[in-house]
């Protein structure tokens, strides 16, 4: 059971219109304390708009957003003192060094010391390049500076919009580990990433939106279980299809060459085996197909390009 204190973010009937275009449509979501929350959706599905509304950059057309129990509309300054955000394109002054950029944002945050700035630079492995101009940074370094900047004031809730964008595999792994570590430290993380494998690895809870509407929400494992898939090779595929189609717990059967792909609960494996054997069809191979968040996501969003 969750109490109000456990809820870090709550949106109620959150809606944003741009003229006739509905960017976010009656979105209700809750992010709980200490949770790593994955927010997924195809391009233009309203993810960035939702994040910008949480940060007070975009005003909702209707609905409410509460962060730490306070309304974003009337308590934005107090809320932002406890929130950090890494936006997809890191916004920094190209003519300033990494250190000076951090200094600019540290001075307008509360209680950020030079030591804290050094600590966050070390954390993202930028301490050696802190005096270099931002304009000379690689995309990965820019992203790491953005993460350092978001962590400056030790926020309780951190929004990450594509944090691994532009990073090499090693950099992605580092960020993934950082996200897990922040989660373990009790920070609440709101993560938008198009790398679904990454989301699957780090998130406790996932919400998928499409055309501004929430279409699925739950723990990654629970979501994936919706699509239990079995792969079988049999002696007579036509007869097997006819037999299995009679069973109401088989939701779909597709052929992939001489393989049959069944959407059916994995616990029905023995029932399948018995049914086919009783009717003279023998299974030469049966295994559970590893479903992933990615396949679930693509299924839900009709294979639109993921952003």
């Amino acid at each position, binding site marked *: 059971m969750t109490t109000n204190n456990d809820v870090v973010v709550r949106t109620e009937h959150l809606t944003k219109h741009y003229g006739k275009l509905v960017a976010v449509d009656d979105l209700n979501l809750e992010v709980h304390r200490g949770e790593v929350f994955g927010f997924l959706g195809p391009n233009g599905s309203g993810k960035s708009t939702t994040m910008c509304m949480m940060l007070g950059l975009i005003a909702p057309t209707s609905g409410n957003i509460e962060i730490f129990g306070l309304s974003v509309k009337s308590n*934005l300054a107090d809320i932002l003192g406890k929130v950090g955000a890494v936006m997809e394109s890191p916004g920094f002054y190209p003519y300033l060094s990494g250190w000076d950029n951090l200094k600019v944002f540290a001075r307008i945050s509360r209680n950020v010391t030079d030591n804290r700035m050094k600590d966050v630079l070390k954390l993202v492995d930028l301490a050696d390049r802190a005096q270099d101009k931002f304009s000379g940074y690689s995309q990965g370094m820019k992203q790491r500076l953005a993460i350092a900047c978001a962590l400056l004031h030790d926020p309780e809730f951190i929004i990450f919009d594509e944090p691994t964008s532009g990073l090499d595999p090693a950099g992605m792994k580092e960020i993934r580990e950082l996200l897990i570590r922040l989660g373990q430290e009790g920070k609440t993380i709101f993560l938008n990433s198009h790398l679904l494998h990454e989301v699957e690895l780090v998130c406790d809870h996932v919400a998928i939106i499409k055309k501004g509407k929430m279409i699925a929400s739950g723990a990654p494992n629970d979501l994936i279980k919706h699509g239990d898939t079995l792969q079988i090779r049999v002696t007579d595929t036509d007869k097997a299809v006819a037999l299995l189609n009679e069973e109401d717990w088989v939701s779909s059967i597709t052929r992939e060459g001489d393989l049959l792909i069944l959407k059916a609960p994995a616990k029905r494996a023995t029932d399948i085996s018995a049914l086919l054997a009783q009717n003279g069809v023998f299974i030469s191979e049966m295994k559970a197909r590893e479903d992933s968040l990615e396949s679930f996501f693509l299924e839900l969003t009709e294979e639109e390009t993921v952003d």
Partner: protein
Amino acid sequence: MIDQIRVELFKLRKRKITWIMIIVLAAFFCLIFFAVYGITANPPARMPHEGLEIMRNLITFPDAFKMIFSTAQNIGAILLTIIVASSVGNEYGWGTIRQTLIRKGIRYQYVVSKLVAFVVYALIGIVIAFIIGFCLALLTTQWVKGALNWDFITVSYIGELFTMYGWTFYGLFVYILLAILLSLVGRSAIVGIGGTLGYYFVESIAISIFSQSGGWLSEIPNYLIGHNITAILPTTMMQGPFASSGALPSTLYASIVLAIYCVVFLGLSLYLFKRRDVTA
């Protein structure tokens, strides 16, 4: 708020364009003083003696002070527009506006702290212009008159210098606010620079056209920024190439008109910035 103003001043100080504009300001001062001196040293044959005398006065003390402040206002308006509009507009292009707003969230503070930083910069800029102009006038006075005479320096004259300083700043302040407004409206430096300088130059053409027409058209310049700034400029009290040709409103009238413009520009900037979504 104080921290944010300090941050804005820090950013201005660290930008190359800030220092480039000061060098350009110094170059303009040198150009103007030496060009006028060149004309007075080798006057065209047809130049009347009276005209030559006015030009000599412009680059020699005490009238050189009026010349210094008027030049600071005229050139300063253009240079400040570039700095202000690029400083405000580029925040959208760099995405730093978002980064700033997600830390504070209080939007009026953002606009006001920028404004205060530009005011400080303009006040310092006028002092720098004064020092450059003063040094140049020392030279040209020496060359034209052969010796420096400081008899005109009295307590009341020093007070007059501060008044000129104030009017010069007031004239610049209107353009600072216009550049902020247009940069916020267009969410870009180009719109801010182009819009403000475009207005500056088109208005000066319009003023000369309207001033020469008759009837109600000739009244229009009395409601325009440039004409009212001219009315408060120190060189207005002088004659010669830097004085206005048309009839000017009184200083009080000009001050009120400019104050109305200031209130409108600032009010619109704050209103628009508060109301609009920041998606850059």
